[in-house]
């Protein structure tokens, strides 16, 4: 009995060390290499701009449409609750604070992970499987500098912008439903929002969150792609892992960051 328990514990330990700690160490070294080789991404900024187009611009539709709908739902739900307390004019505050502090960065991050993160992993993984990365290396071009770093920085730059656009679209959606459809007073909708949303405490903290999510998602995406076994299953598995790990990372980091930013007043 004791021996079986010992064996189970040992197997568990091996799995944790091999699958998690070892990989985390490997991924950290990979991130360090990427940062070290980032010179090219900025010296030849057009390489990064091209990736911003693929990761950022092409994600715009899903981000804008989702932002609009999330904002409209917030408008409906928020009005429903606020009207019970006779404070429906505070709808603007509710919509904008929920979006800027929480939903904007988190939902935009989750969408970014599934739209752009998966694409980055699949692209790098397939480049590896078809020997394009080896060919590059044989041409004396470092794939981390030429392929990985521009994609990493493109993700880091795109993510806060997408989250900001998501929030802006959401506020507009809340306005459409609250003011245009239900008839909340337009003046108090905007003026209360202006008075209650603080630039540093609310907006800046939201931007910091989205920046951290951007680093996490893109880091996971480029690492999984680069580390993918060079086969069809390897690449598909890596793509799935990117979406799952990145989504969990966003939710966990969101809790940590919210706790750090929490004032309790």
């Amino acid at each position, binding site marked *: 009995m004791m021996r079986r328990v010992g064996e189970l514990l040992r197997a568990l330990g091996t799995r944790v060390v091999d699958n998690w700690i070892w990989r985390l160490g490997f991924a950290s070294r990979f991130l360090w290499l990427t940062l070290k080789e980032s010179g090219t991404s900025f010296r030849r900024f057009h390489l990064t701009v091209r990736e911003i187009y693929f990761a950022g611009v092409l994600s715009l539709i899903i981000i804008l449409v989702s932002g609009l709908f999330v904002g409209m739902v917030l408008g409906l739900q928020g009005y429903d609750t606020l009207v019970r307390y006779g404070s429906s004019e505070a709808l603007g505050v509710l919509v904008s604070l929920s979006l800027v502090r929480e939903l904007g960065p988190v939902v935009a991050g989750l969408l970014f992970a599934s739209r752009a993160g998966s694409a980055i992993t699949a692209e790098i993984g397939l480049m590896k499987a078809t020997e*394009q990365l*080896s060919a590059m290396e044989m041409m004396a071009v470092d794939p981390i500098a030429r392929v990985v770093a521009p994609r990493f920085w493109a993700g880091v730059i795109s993510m806060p912008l997408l989250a900001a656009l998501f929030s802006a679209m959401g506020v507009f959606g809340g306005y459409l439903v609250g003011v245009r459809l239900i008839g909340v007073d337009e003046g108090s909708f905007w003026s209360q929002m202006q008075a209650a949303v603080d630039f540093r405490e609310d907006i800046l903290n939201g931007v910091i969150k989205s920046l951290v999510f951007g680093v996490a998602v893109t880091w996971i995406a480029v690492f999984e792609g680069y580390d993918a076994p060079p086969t069809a299953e390897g690449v598909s598995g890596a793509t799935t892992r990117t979406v799952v790990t990145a989504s969990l990372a966003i939710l966990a980091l969101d809790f940590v960051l919210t706790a750090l930013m929490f004032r309790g007043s």
Partner: protein
Amino acid sequence: MRDAVTTSNLVEVENVTFSYDRREVLKDINLVIPRGKAVAIMGLSGCGKTTLLRLIGGALIPDKGEVRVAGRAINRLGYDELFALRRKMGMLFQFGALFTDMSSFDNVAFPMREHTGLPEPLIRDMVLMKLQAVGLRGAADLMPAELSGGMARRVALARSIALDPMLMMYDEPFTGLDPVSLGITGQLIRRLNDSLGATSIIVTHDVAEALELVDYVYYMSAGKIEFHGTPGEVRAAGHQALRQFVYGEPDGPVPFHYPAPEYRLDLLAQ
């Protein structure tokens, strides 16, 4: 370190042993590739040919022994020196390994843009010359997905000679080509070798094509060099495994069956 000028061999592999994990793939390999020659490394699939090519390109590091290219021990070079040496090498991958997000033109221009800093009009002329050399100037604007297998291989060839390498390495350049493309590729390899004044290493198991093409042959089996000689010597050799390989006989020293338990026992087993 030996002086590059005094040695007539561009590549020297000395007592090289290499293993993946614990599986020994190359055992005490010795070979030399003289300057200006085209040399074939032949052998059955999985005998360690491609591994040897990767060792020469510095993509792998031998467990024991030394690989020298142009007199420099490649396994003792630093990162920057290795990359500097690689600029003088070209490698053609088995399926071309073209960058799928770039046109043929941009693929060939890639090494020039990365390494030379030449003005774009000059790069354009050079790319068109390289594509002309492989007969695909007309396909400059096509994407890799629009090229046939043989054409993709030729564009990749143009890309690997973009910087006029002193050493060209070909990894199975004939695999999966139709007879016409195969003939064209073979001719191109020989012509490029002679006109560039380069040295070529061709890893292949396409016996007929290789024997027509090269100056010297190394035959490998199970991680060892079993035989080496000129194509004439290879054809005339009495070496049994080599004969089986050259004349494509299904059974011989190289067995048809992968090692397995006895057939009868295997079928009767529950």
